[in-house]
């Protein structure tokens, strides 16, 4: 990723934009943080938030006219947060705090004229920045409304503590101003509290800098009645004085000084309407707390709400994209974001819900591709899935033929490598049905190349797609009927000129197969994430279910907002625990049994213990309770593919082609339940165990346990060393434990 790309992505995520209240506040009080503390009744802490930002806070918190309320996001769901009243409550009830610490002296003296709110605020802002301030005025607090006893005195004391020298009861002839231009480095005039000839002399100040006709003299705009805007003029003047005395640009980068607009997005869709606390007098502690609780604590986090993966890593895309960028830049040391990059399901939900179309999927897929190109992709991340894909694309599983007795194909059925792995009988039935009703339907058993693409292995994905294309051309370029939503998506991308139909649209057109069953109870229709951008596909499936009189329920996050089942993007390989957590979230989307048209969704959801079936289970019923069928393990999936091809060749094409049996395949053994579970968790196949056992038998190399009499053998057929602990019983071998590691033992070990 180039740095410019990083900036662009960062810019796209608005989660770190400031809330509306803060942006609209002329002084940028952090109303969100303030409300959070008030809601916890931490009045003193809340007061510190105000006192950190407001000059003369005891005065200003009581006079603030709260322009933030006009833009408060709460205003459309009950009414804006009553910031003004909350500030007043806090001012009355919190422990007063000392004025902020003054910065070291800059050795610059500034004259401030006028003791109104603007003058006091200007003096405060200048003094805390380390200017030596002299405030000249006839009355301190001139023009302020009545304040509770002691409030003004306390703030005057704070001003003096900040080092402001106050000269009272002075008359202010115009010469005083002219003198001060000689003695001081700059001056600020509170135009509401000085004689009129001053303001005439200075003219209307510039809106941005408050600069006047006199160099180094700044003045507040005339006629400002809002207290908080008066204070803001004081701060603006202080900023100008600072720039002026430093000799830097007076204008650049000042857009965010006063109120401004923010890009922050906050979704109100699930926010309940709650009206402001109604009381006529001042708040009690409880009412203040309850009012503050109405604050929505505005943030975006739209994508994080719906994506277990984004939630899992505790931040949000703006932070993640930086981590991904840093990951790529590391030359020496540990890359911290590999797991982050490899755990995205690449499902696109984030992009769909994001107000700015941020696609974490694009970020992660691109990072994977780069990692593969530069040899930085961890070996373990996708290796098992890629080996499985190679197996599915191997001779024992692939097939491309015209229907028996046909020499051409109008259509070719493409069930995909996962449907064949999980439900070979369903595939047989579907293919039979298609031939019965459409005639010349050929068959292609092949992987659609999605796993390679997800793993960032573009070359491999292209090679797989090219072989597939060749086979399809050899069949005379028939129209493709695919059942799996991921196959549909991947094939349409890889073969853009080919007409590719879903099995569901065919069924919608020709009607149900004769044996299709109907289910009495309602089912939750699970849309796979691969169908997100395919409304027709989603509609076709529902039409087919409707014909079966299935009463349909929509789970949470469905349709265009479909959540992934935990298989997409190979998350279940790169981060198995997260994969299961994602599946769990998906499974909890509805109480009813699920029916889905993606076999991986079916199997992932079934793994969580939730009852789930595939539409084929209803269209081509073969079992009494298909929703209870467990997800087949990795070994069974491979065997299913091989068996399906053999059975099709035998039953459909009348060809008895038994493949050459490898020696290890003849090794028989049983496993304990615990071993069956470890095999799945550790991605150890039955064939891996057979290879170890064969090797032990042939070489005689193994350990024996004195106490149990069990044997222990190891073998490294490819990149993994497998260990098998087993017992030789009269009834045959029983495997008690299996494990594996990637490290290679140097020396003679097989």
């Amino acid at each position: 990723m180039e740095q410019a790309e990083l900036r662009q992505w960062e810019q796209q995520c608005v989660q770190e934009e400031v809330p509306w209240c803060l942006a609209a506040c002329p002084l940028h009080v952090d109303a969100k943080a303030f409300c959070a503390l008030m809601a916890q009744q931490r009045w003193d802490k809340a007061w510190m938030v105000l006192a950190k930002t407001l000059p003369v806070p005891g005065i200003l918190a009581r006079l603030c006219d709260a322009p933030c309320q006009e833009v408060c996001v709460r205003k459309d769901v009950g009414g804006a947060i009553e910031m003004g009243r909350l500030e007043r409550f806090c001012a009355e009830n919190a422990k007063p705090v000392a004025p902020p610490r003054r910065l070291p002296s800059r050795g610059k003296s500034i004259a401030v004229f006028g003791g109104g709110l603007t003058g006091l605020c200007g003096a405060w802002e200048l003094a805390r920045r380390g200017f030596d301030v002299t405030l000249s005025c006839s009355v301190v607090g001139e023009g302020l409304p009545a304040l509770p006893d002691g409030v003004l005195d306390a703030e005057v004391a704070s001003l003096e503590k900040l080092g402001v020298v106050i000269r009272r009861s002075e008359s202010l002839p115009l010469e005083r101003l002219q003198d001060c231009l000689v003695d001081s480095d700059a001056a600020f005039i509170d135009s509401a509290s000085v004689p009129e000839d001053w303001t005439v002399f200075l003219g209307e100040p510039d809106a941005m800098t408050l600069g006047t006709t006199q160099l180094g003299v700044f003045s507040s705009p005339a006629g400002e009645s809002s207290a908080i805007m008066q204070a803001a003029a004081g701060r603006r003047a202080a900023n100008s004085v600072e720039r002026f005395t430093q000799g830097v640009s007076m204008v650049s980068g000042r857009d965010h000084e006063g109120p401004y607009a923010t890009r922050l997005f906050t979704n109100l869709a699930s926010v309940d309407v709650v009206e402001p606390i109604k009381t006529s007098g001042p708040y009690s502690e409880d009412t203040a707390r309850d009012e503050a609780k109405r604050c929505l604590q505005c943030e975006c986090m739209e994508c994080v709400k719906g994506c277990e993966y984004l939630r899992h890593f505790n931040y949000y895309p703006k932070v993640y994209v930086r981590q991904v960028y840093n990951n790529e830049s590391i030359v020496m040391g540990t890359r911290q974001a590999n797991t982050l990059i490899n755990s995205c399901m690449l499902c696109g939900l984030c992009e769909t819900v994001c107000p700015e179309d941020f696609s974490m999927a694009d970020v992660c897929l691109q990072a994977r591709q780069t990692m593969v190109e530069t040899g930085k992709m961890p070996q373990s991340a996708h290796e098992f899935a890629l080996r499985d894909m190679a197996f599915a694309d191997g001779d024992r599983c692939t097939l491309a033929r015209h229907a028996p007795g046909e020499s051409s194909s109008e259509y070719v059925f493409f069930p995909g490598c996962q449907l064949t792995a999980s439900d070979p009988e369903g595939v047989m039935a579907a293919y039979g049905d298609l031939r019965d009703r459409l005639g010349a339907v050929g068959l292609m058993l092949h992987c659609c190349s999605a796993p390679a693409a997800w793993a960032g292995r573009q070359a491999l994905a292209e090679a797989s797609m090219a072989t597939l294309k060749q086979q399809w051309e050899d069949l005379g370029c028939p129209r493709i009927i695919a059942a799996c939503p991921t196959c549909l998506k991947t094939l349409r991308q890889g073969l853009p000129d080919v007409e590719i139909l879903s099995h569901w649209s065919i069924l919608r057109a020709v009607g149900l197969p004769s044996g299709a069953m109907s289910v009495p109870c309602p089912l939750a229709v699970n849309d796979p994430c691969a169908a997100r951008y395919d409304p027709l596909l989603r509609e076709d499936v529902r039409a087919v279910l409707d014909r079966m009189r299935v009463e349909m329920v929509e789970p949470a996050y469905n349709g265009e907002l479909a959540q992934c089942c935990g298989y997409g993007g190979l998350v279940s390989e790169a981060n198995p625990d997260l994969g299961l957590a994602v599946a769990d979230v998906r499974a909890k989307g509805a109480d009813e049994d699920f029916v889905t048209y993606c076999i991986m969704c079916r199997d992932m959801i079934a793994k969580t213990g939730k009852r789930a079936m595939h539409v084929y289970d209803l269209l081509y019923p073969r079992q009494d309770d298909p929703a209870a069928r467990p997800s087949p393990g990795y070994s069974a999936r491979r065997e299913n593919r091989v068996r399906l091809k053999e059975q099709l060749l035998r039953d459909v094409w009348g060809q008895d082609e038994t493949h050459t049996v490898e020696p290890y395949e003849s090794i028989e053994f049983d496993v304990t339940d615990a071993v069956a579970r470890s095999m799945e968790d550790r991605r150890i196949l039955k064939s891996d165990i057979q290879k170890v056992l064969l090797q032990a038998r042939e070489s005689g190399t193994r350990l024996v346990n004195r106490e149990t009499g069990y044997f222990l053998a190891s073998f490294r057929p490819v990149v993994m060393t497998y260990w098998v602990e087993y017992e030789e019983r009269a009834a045959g071998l029983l495997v008690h434990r299996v494990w594996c590691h990637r490290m290679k033992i140097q020396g003679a070990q097989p």
Partner: protein
Amino acid sequence: MSVIKVPEADIAGWTCATCGTELVLAPVELEYLDSLFNVELPRCPSCGFVYIPEGLALGKMHQVEQLLEDK
């Protein structure tokens, strides 16, 4: 670099079935992603068969593998 330790308990009971010999701790070289480790592991002194217990393979060894992958 001996970063990997084998708990005594894991070795208990295992002998080489081929040679009928007790295993003894001996320096063994392990290799992953072009990195070599010299580790003391239980080994048959006569035929050289090395024993890597389950706890080691899934624990410390796995951690080292991941570390190397992320380097």
